[in-house]
């Protein structure tokens, strides 16, 4: 087992060392030659533009076959970050990575740097759910475009842009409940209300005897549910960089 992993690792490192030759500032790594020339440059410039705007490197890595070669997609993404020192205007800075394993039908989304606060595990889950339909239909250009736009949408938002509180229909319902409650209370209290209580008429009150006896303790343990679709969440890279993440299959 350990031996096999070592092989895999060598193989992986070879893969990775190939990459930097292709140039600094590269954002989309299409190792499966999936995208046509013009689509590739179109998405690259979109990624470039949004990266500048949102101050985060948006990286997309497409691999032919990770799972089949025994490579874990999360580990692969971590190593890519360590290797390439991604980050907006600095090494190991803000980065969003989308890794796609074509044969393995797996996808991993990761957030690095300070902007992890905008790309939390649950928010990456939301983005993953958004792009999964396109993944299933093999529309990878749409996947990449959607990913870039979604990252852009999340950066700078203190809460998820999909949060129910930001939905107009939800705000309408809350406003409705508030108004109905207040008017209801006003109507109810129109004719006067009872203002006497225990305090009004109490002459003397005392506790003659009082016992609080501990009898027993019950303990229940529930496993904290990990998000379904085996999304592993974040972790720490070998290089010691913590990150958020969302993993799923398509």
């Amino acid at each position, binding site marked *: 087992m350990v031996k096999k992993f070592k092989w895999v690792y060598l193989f992986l490192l070879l893969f990775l060392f190939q990459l930097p030759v292709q140039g600094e500032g590269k954002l989309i790594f299409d190792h499966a030659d999936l995208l046509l020339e013009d689509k590739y440059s179109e998405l690259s410039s979109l990624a470039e533009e949004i990266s500048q705007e949102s101050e985060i490197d948006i990286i997309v890595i497409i691999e032919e076959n990770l799972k089949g070669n025994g490579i874990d997609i999360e580990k692969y993404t971590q190593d890519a970050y360590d290797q390439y020192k991604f980050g907006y205007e600095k090494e190991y800075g803000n980065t969003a990575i989308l890794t796609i394993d074509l044969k393995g039908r797996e996808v991993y989304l990761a957030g690095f740097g300070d902007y992890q606060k905008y790309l939390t595990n649950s928010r990456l889950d939301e983005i993953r759910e958004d792009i999964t339909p396109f993944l299933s239909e093999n529309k990878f250009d749409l996947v990449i475009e959607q990913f870039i736009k979604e990252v852009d949408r999340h950066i700078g938002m*203190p809460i998820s842009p999909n949060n129910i509180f930001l939905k107009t229909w939800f705000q309408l319902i809350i406003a409705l409940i508030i108004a109905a409650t207040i008017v209801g209370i006003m109507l109810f209290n129109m004719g006067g209300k009872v203002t006497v209580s225990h305090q009004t008429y109490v002459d003397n009150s005392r506790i003659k*005897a009082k016992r609080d006896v501990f009898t027993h303790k019950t303990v*229940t343990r529930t496993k904290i549910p990990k998000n379904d679709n085996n999304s592993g969440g974040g972790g720490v890279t070998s290089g010691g960089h913590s990150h958020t993440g969302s993993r799923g299959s398509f």
Partner: protein
Amino acid sequence: MLIHHTCPNCGADMNFNSETGMLSCDSCGHNQSVEQLEDIKLTQTFEQDDAREYHCENCGAVVVTDKDTTATSCSFCGGAVILVDRLSGELAPVQVIPFTISKEEAMQAFKKWCRNGRLTPKGFMTANRVKNITGMYVPFWMYDLNNDVEVHAKATKVRTYTSGEYQVTETSHYDVYRKLDIDYAKVPVDASEKLDDQIMDKLEPYNYNDLKPFKTAYLAGYLAEKYNYNDEQLYPRVKNKVKSYIDNYITSTINGYTSVQYHQKNINTKQKHSYYVLLPIWMIYYDLEKQEHNFLMNAQTGKIVGKPPVSMQKVSLWFLGLFSSSFIVLKIIALLLGGALW
């Protein structure tokens, strides 16, 4: 038997004055302290339900009374008459809280209250359509109660924390026992069958510092009634009334738990004393769009109770205003959090 309080100076009728708290003569302005007056003590009690005819001692006209009336005014000469035989023996009130709010003050307070009606029709707020305003002493029973309370409950304290991959919920269970001794003093219950109990409960509280030993003179110029129910008949009502107070107190003695479930609650209420008292109210009849509305005012504190008319237009306006303003506030918060306008 009827009594009139007549002015020792000029012989005119005297009425109770809520401002001075004395009997005063409208003709010569003579004031007389009520405390010094000797009440005529009748030993004979009147015959139950006897709608007897009384004759006004001033003018000799027939004073028309309801079977419960104890004080009224002669419909012919307007003189204050007090039906003393209905205030004697078993029917003798022990104490009374005199009027402190005069008719004029009551009117002013009522008009002010109308103007503050946020959901009442416009006409209700401005028009002076008070048809009638009557000052009346309502019969009440006041109870001094002693309550022995024993409570058995099961309570829990819940602590949750995460340990590794687990969410741990630790529930500590407790047997809780309380033995309480609660005394209530002078809990009032109205003893008139004509008045709605719920409305009367809303008129409370009265300030008991003004409780005075009963004198017929306090009734001069007002309506008054005798009780329809005696203290025994009303006892279940007062017991029921203090039950909610007791529950309140019980909860206040059991603190620090996440949940409390009562298994046994034994409330043993004992009556220590009961007093027959008269408490003052102003009854206001109000006409609006051919509908009559009744309001009661606590004639000691000025608290007003009654169902005012509701303007659907105003209700909708309030609703719309609150709805749109809370929506705008929510929207602004959402925008600050980075949400889109739509």
